[in-house]
């Protein structure tokens, strides 16, 4: 019970920060950035290479590594910053040109899907498809597992899961502060409420859109690196499943709703963790069954507001 709870919170917190990346962009542009799953993967590879680890033998960069290696926390941070910049480039390439032409948001969705496919293929070309693993020293001298039970009835939890939960929660708090407690956050909320009015009031919406893509990329990369740390980077496609799960989370939480994404992420993580052992292989379906069930009752999501149609 305790074990399932902690397992669920750990994976759910990653879903949450990953989904926040979707949410940020959606709340500003009302478009889903399908490249978010790919950025998740890019971020994981970036922080992997920043730890000084080398690439394997199945891509253009075979055997290559940086001449230096950062400790994991720094690699995580800088990898996320770089992935944030990748997010900015995606905005410039896949979203901005269409937005300027006033294209249907559906077109942006498709162009971001194109970017996702391209990114994943570039990754495979560069680093191959083999799995990569962060150095085991990434978490320093921490033990591999912590016993939350007694010696007689152990409830071992992997340290990396505790780290994931802690880092994710810190990020949620910081992001909440950024959105609620700073001028930039206020501006973001204003743009999210009504971009045209915000622009008329002198808010530089273009800059804020870029900023939200940066933050989104940053969050995706943190999620990717943390998952990679926990289970190794399974290959260029490993963000795909998370991409879909993230979508389920934001729909469940209420599109564009930040607290909703956090609650929904944790909820889906917990729902998966409590799937009985012999049915665990079906747990991905659980996320979507939960989603479907909630949407039947609350089509606007858990915390989303029903939108009033203005005539």
């Amino acid at each position: 019970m305790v074990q399932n709870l902690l397992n669920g919170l750990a994976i759910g917190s990653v879903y949450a920060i990953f989904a926040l990346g979707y949410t940020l962009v959606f709340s500003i542009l009302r478009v889903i950035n399908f490249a978010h799953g790919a950025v998740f993967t890019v971020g994981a590879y970036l922080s992997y290479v920043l730890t000084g680890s080398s690439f394997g033998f199945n891509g253009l960069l075979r055997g290559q590594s940086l001449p230096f290696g950062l400790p994991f926390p720094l690699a995580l941070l800088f990898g996320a910053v770089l992935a944030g910049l990748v997010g900015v480039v995606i905005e410039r390439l896949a979203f901005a040109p269409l937005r300027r032409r006033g294209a249907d948001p559906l077109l942006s969705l498709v162009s971001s899907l194109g970017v996702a496919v391209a990114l994943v293929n570039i990754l495979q070309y560069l680093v191959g498809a083999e799995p990569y693993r962060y150095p085991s020293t990434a978490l320093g001298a921490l033990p591999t597992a912590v016993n939350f039970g007694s010696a007689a009835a152990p409830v071992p939890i992997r340290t990396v899961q505790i780290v994931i939960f802690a880092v994710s929660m810190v990020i949620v708090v910081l992001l909440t502060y950024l959105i609620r407690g700073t001028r930039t956050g206020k501006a973001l909320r204003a743009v999210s409420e009504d971009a045209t009015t915000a622009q008329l009031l002198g808010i530089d919406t273009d800059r804020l859109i870029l900023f939200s893509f940066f933050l989104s990329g940053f969050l995706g990369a943190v999620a990717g690196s943390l998952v990679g740390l926990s289970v190794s980077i399974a290959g260029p496609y490993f963000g795909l499943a998370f991409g879909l799960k993230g979508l389920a989370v934001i729909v469940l939480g209420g599109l564009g709703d930040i607290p909703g994404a956090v609650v929904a992420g944790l909820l889906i993580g917990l729902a998966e963790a409590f799937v009985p052992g012999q049915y665990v292989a079906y747990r991905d379906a659980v996320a979507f069954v939960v989603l479907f069930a909630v949407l039947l009752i609350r089509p606007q999501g858990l915390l989303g507001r029903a939108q009033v149609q203005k005539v």
Partner: protein
Amino acid sequence: MRRGTISICLLLATLLAACGAPSPTDSAAGGSEEATSEEATSEEASSPSEDGSPAEESESAAELSGEPIPLGVAVAQTGNVALLGQEQVIGAEIAEAFFNERGGVNGRPIDVLLQDTAGDEAGASNAFNTLINQNEVVGIVGPTLSQQAFAASPIADRAGVPVLGPSNTAAGIPEIGDYVARVSAPVSVVAPNAVEVALEQDPDIQSVSVAYAQNDAFSTSETGTFQATVTELGLTLNPVQTFQTTDTDFTSQASTIIGQNPQLVIVSGLAADGGNLVRQLRELGYAGLIIGGNGLNTANVFTVCGLLCDGVIIAQAYSPELDSDINAEFVEAYTAGQDRNPPQFSAQAFTGVQVFVEALIAVDDDQGLDSLELPELRTALNEAILAGEYDTPLGPISFTEEGEVNQEQFYVAQIEMEDEQTGSFTFVR
């Protein structure tokens, strides 16, 4: 907002459906994994696969005369499966040079024609069609994967072209048709050896936990063999745990398995997922023995579980340590071009070519190759393959009437990690 939500749900459903279908990327990734599940035994994780054909054909073929006999080798040279297909190419090229040096087919050289199958069924079918119709080969060694064999081998069977599967270990391969045989022993024969070794290492084993990737046909068939072996040995089989090859988080399964308090855990999955399960089991404190299925029989697994891979027991169909002349010569030829011992799938590809060469010699001795039209030659060759006995690097082999390989000796290796990324398979039997 409501319309937006509904359209996103529809989109999600479409994407999920798309994910369920084997997309090219899926088949590439899954392909590599299945390839590993079937044949991989790389000795060193960090050693890149390089072309290691020991001698150019022209050098040795110079003493031979007559039209070269075209033999097709259709394996995965590109794509994710290439890691393994390249090892098969090396094995086949070594065999080509080796047998041509020894006189080919009664003085006529063999010409190994390589066709890339990539990692999917369509690629294998194309390669088979090209070899059969354009290159007019006498027979084909290939493809790399069982899933490709089910698509491509029927093409050869219908055309009356003998096929030898070098690394297809799933059930039902020889049953594809009269012209389809394999040199790779099926999982039902190889896998139980690992359980025997585990019992030798820890005779007190009573309780066994099993986990398998339920979305992978090969793992599902393999776990059936393992579970039957455990039951037959009178051991207690705990409730079986399942996962998907795409899963990454195995804390639920690992926690449940530890709660079952087993002395042995058997994992049938592929490299990334199986390796992750091993890692998470160890991190959560499991200290007993672990048997990995053939999916973990690859150096790719080293990067997933690192030092925690240490000690995983895996059954093998080939050992470089087999004491026979042909194996010694094969190992010598292989190590001349590579800085490591040959893995299982190089040995199996070599064996595939060897069987063809020796069967061709038998046909030539019996009927004379020149007296036969190509269709007759292919049929005679197929009969000769099934009738012959061969002393190969895998040990002595022969075939059943159906085309199943009879292999006498199997091996068991244990993973020994040197550092985080590098390890080797140490033979314990």
